[in-house]
């Protein structure tokens, strides 16, 4: 039970907002020491852990192309394009992306999108463009909220889409673990099938929240205008 101190360190560290890198490193070292590893083994774990997990840093390879197209105004063009479509709101843009992301992930194409390759250059500017068309000006607070939901639509779409596809990591993990440990013979297809009800629920819940997002943004914009009016009235005195 003593090893749980490491978990506690992580929770406390994140809660008091220390630099996550330090929190994670210290928690790792403490846990390893409590688990009876010696310093040489711990250093070795940090090294092999880094070497084996390089794949999560793949988003870096996408940055050069995103950099150059942003330099030439891709985000602005995405805004202009959305601005022409009168019926689109931030929430509806994001529902559309959620649907595309979920459906493509469900047929195994989850590399089609991502935070570096689609959310930053395309999805967020489009959603913000829709808000700009509606309000004429996007205050920082609203922009921040749209950013959070742009990334959120990507995550929800891919998490609850990819599990409907048979050859995805999480399904294969279930079958290999269960088949070797409990001597069952689970078909990946069965698991994928039973992921469908949750996938539908995820789309309904998240889609509903994105529809409500437009109303929340409307409300926040009214509040923003009110305070701006009050401030300018105050200055007039």
């Amino acid at each position, binding site marked *: 039970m003593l090893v749980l101190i490491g978990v506690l360190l992580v929770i406390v560290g994140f809660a008091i907002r220390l630099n996550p890198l330090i929190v994670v490193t210290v928690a790792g070292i403490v*846990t390893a020491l409590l688990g009876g590893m010696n310093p040489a083994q711990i250093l070795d774990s940090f090294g092999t852990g880094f070497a084996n997990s390089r*794949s999560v840093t793949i988003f870096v390879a996408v940055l050069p192309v995103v950099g150059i197209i942003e*330099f030439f105004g891709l985000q602005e*063009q995405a805004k202009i394009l959305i601005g022409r479509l009168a019926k689109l709101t931030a929430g509806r843009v994001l529902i559309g992306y959620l649907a595309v992301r979920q459906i493509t992930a469900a047929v195994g194409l989850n590399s089609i999108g991502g935070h570096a390759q689609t959310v930053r250059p395309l999805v967020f500017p489009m959603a913000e463009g829709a808000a700009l068309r509606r309000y004429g000006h996007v205050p920082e607070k609203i922009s921040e909220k749209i950013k959070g939901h742009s990334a959120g639509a990507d995550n929800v779409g891919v998490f609850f889409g990819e599990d409907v596809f048979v050859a995805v990591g999480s399904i294969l993990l279930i079958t290999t673990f269960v088949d070797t440990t409990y001597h069952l013979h689970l078909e990946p297809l069965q698991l994928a099938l039973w992921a469908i009800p949750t996938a539908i629920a995820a789309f309904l819940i998240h889609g509903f929240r994105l529809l409500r997002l437009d109303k929340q943004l409307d409300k926040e914009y009214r509040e923003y205008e009110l305070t701006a009016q009050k401030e300018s009235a105050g200055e007039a005195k």
Partner: protein
Amino acid sequence: MINVEAVYWLIGILFVAWASLIAADANHPRRWGSSAFWGLLGLCFFYSTWVQAGTAPGWILGIAVLVLVVLASTGLLGHGKHRTTTGPEREAFAKRFGNKLFIPALTLPLVTVILVLAAPVLVIGRTPLLDPKNTTLVALAIGAVAAVVVALLILKPKNPATPIFESRRILESIGWAALLPQMLTTLGILFTKAGVGTAVGTLASGLLPKGSLIAGVIVYCVGMFLFTVLMGNGFAAFPIMTAAIGWPVLVQGFHGDPAIVFAIGMLAGFCGTLCTPMAANFNLVPSALLEMENKYGVITAQVGTAIPLLAVNIGLMYFLAFH
């Protein structure tokens, strides 16, 4: 065959290139600390090839990783000021290029997907062209390179190194968060080696009242959720919670359909992934990429979906898996 190591070397080369740009930037407020951080990170990507092959000692890399953590968390890593295009300049470019700007952005996913789909038939002699164990990674890297080439051809920047200059701007706004996903994976490995999983499993099965199906389903799903929040991904949580509750209680005890119990159990874990800073590549890297004020803004946007969805998963498992 294009091996996945080639992809890691490409990433390493990019890091070293950005480090040299920073080192050459006399106005950078953290010139040496920042270039040391990104340069060392790049070298770690090269050196890892031999660690993974088992031909170089891992502890040297371990020391380098700890140096990176120290550089990043002692304020030696910082942001430079970048000369990039201004708002009006970008609008002018957008008018000039119009929808052509989308071509490179769409080249990336298109090339990636085509390569992933075509990988099984892309064979030279008997060797596959793309590393079969890491097809997606290799395809994505090729897609990224192809998209840069297309962008250079269409946009014809004065300086062909523009993609590197401009991506340095994005990289510096991500900052130390770029290293976090890898550090969290290492933490997961250390947790597992030290027996954190078994301890949590014992705790969870101790909490369980005997003989109640709904309690079993709730403890399994909520356990998957919480354990995923702690570890950052459902993959680490699944074997532990399944060994503690999913298999002995739900499948053996209550005769649940294993496919339904395990599929939905994993999805309950995914709800946890939406709520945790430990899943840095999904939740913290994006907030850095989008230059958000609040680092936890992505999680804030997702919690409202994750909690009701967890409840739905509990209901689905309870009503579907047991007849």
